[in-house]
């Protein structure tokens, strides 16, 4: 029988994610790197008391709709619906933007383990690569040290960092085939290939499913062996309803546009006047 990891729908793909599950969620801060449709399906499924492992905690759909992203949901869909018991996360909040995660955190409604981004990547990789732990210098001399074994190796201090094990990894890739081989697009790899294979079950949301053999064997980033399920995004994104009401998003985009324009002017005139 041919191997076939392709699953027909997002709801089917996440049907066994139960309350209390530990889920890794790929991506960085941007929605285009995020498994948006899988997150929506987890929300619809109703799973709660989740422990999530992710780089960031989401900004909500409005800011991404402003950018024209066709699938605008990010981690915020689980945050604002209070599905998360504990977040293992590197960049939970933003200096410029008060997100829903920050509100929950201040309200004491969610536990957090904040992890340096590179340490998060390495701990996820350790789980995938069968390592018992890794010694990492990041965080020495900071609160990240707390409760961790310290060791001096070759004259330098390191912290023992343990693998992060998870039940599911939800990732987003550009193209995939029935073996689970994946390629990504541009800077949207981020945590997606790192998390692929690091959980008991890896589920890949892809922009497009292609025939076996269509992906160049020299350019496959995630070997199919790491992937259990592949599910394709709809070719036509659902229409986004309603006004964009997020004033923070509008404001930060406006500010950034002004800044880039100011940079251009500064450059054109060769510096300050």
């Amino acid at each position: 029988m041919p191997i076939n990891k392709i699953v027909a729908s997002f709801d089917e793909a996440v049907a066994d994610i139960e309350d209390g599950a530990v889920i890794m969620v790929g991506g960085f801060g941007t929605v285009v790197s995020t498994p948006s449709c899988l997150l929506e399906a987890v929300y619809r499924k109703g799973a709660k008391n989740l422990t999530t492992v992710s780089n960031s905690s989401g900004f909500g759909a409005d800011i991404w709709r402003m950018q024209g992203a066709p699938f605008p949901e990010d981690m915020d869909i689980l945050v604002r619906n209070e599905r998360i018991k504990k977040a293992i996360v590197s960049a939970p909040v933003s200096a410029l933007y008060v997100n829903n995660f920050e509100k929950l955190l201040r309200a004491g409604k969610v536990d957090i383990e904040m992890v340096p981004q590179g340490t998060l990547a390495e701990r996820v990789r350790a789980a995938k690569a069968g390592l018992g732990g890794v010694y990492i210098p990041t965080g020495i001399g900071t609160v990240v040290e707390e409760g961790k074994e310290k060791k001096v190796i070759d004259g330098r201090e390191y912290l023992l960092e343990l693998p992060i094990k998870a039940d599911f990894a939800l990732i987003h890739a550009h193209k995939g085939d029935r073996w689970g081989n994946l390629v990504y697009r541009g800077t949207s790899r981020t945590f997606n290939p790192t998390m692929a294979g690091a959980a008991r079950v890896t589920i890949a949301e892809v922009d497009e499913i292609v025939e076996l053999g269509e992906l160049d064997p020299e350019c496959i980033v995630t070997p199919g062996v790491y992937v259990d399920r592949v599910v394709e995004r709809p070719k036509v994104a659902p229409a986004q309803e309603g006004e964009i009401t997020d004033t923070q998003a509008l404001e930060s985009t406006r500010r950034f546009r002004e800044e880039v324009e100011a940079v251009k002017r500064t450059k054109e005139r060769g510096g300050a006047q």
Partner: protein
Amino acid sequence: MSDNLRGKERLDRQIIALRVAKEFQDGDVVNLGIGIPMLASNFVPAGREVVFHSENGVLGFGEVTLPGEGDLDIVNAGGQTVRPQPGMCFFGHDESFAIVRGGHLDISVMGAYQVSEKGDLANYMVPEREVGTIGGAMDLAQGARRLIIAMNHTTKEGEPRIVKKCSYLLTAPECVDLIVTDIAVIEVTDRGLVLKEVAPGWTPEEVQSMTEPTLIVDPECHDIELM
């Protein structure tokens, strides 16, 4: 800080970024943090070839582009679209931080809340807000060969950000090499903080008055060049 300094003109964010970019030498591999540092990719001195790294998994991108221009799948760590360039390549997060932690970056540029006279950096957690974000800052602070801080010299309330000892939680101890602010350029050395440059119209004494630790004024201290 005296009241007459409060209204004195300081460098704007673009010019701080422009000054930072003058530090980039041919062939340097440079990571730019969110905020002022990111603007520096638009100010690489003419004729120099610099390779920009961003922790979301890219090396070799070009200038930041306007919102709505550019490809949402080619962005810097702030999520801003950047111009693709020949030689650019992409990778995942484990590789991206192997590059950072493994000492493969020449320069990291970041913002900060506070820098101490020993070069301790505090840039992730503001006590009054009770929350913060570590992100890639701890990795970058300890991993890059040279750490440049780009920030305003004082808080909105006029309190010094360059302090004897950081009151905010540390991102990393003894990691900062150079501080570029809206009024000065200061080098962190074994002897202490050395004032190298001042913004046009500012004197070393005025900069000192807005800085907690004592500055060593470089004999060659001069005005920051604005172009």
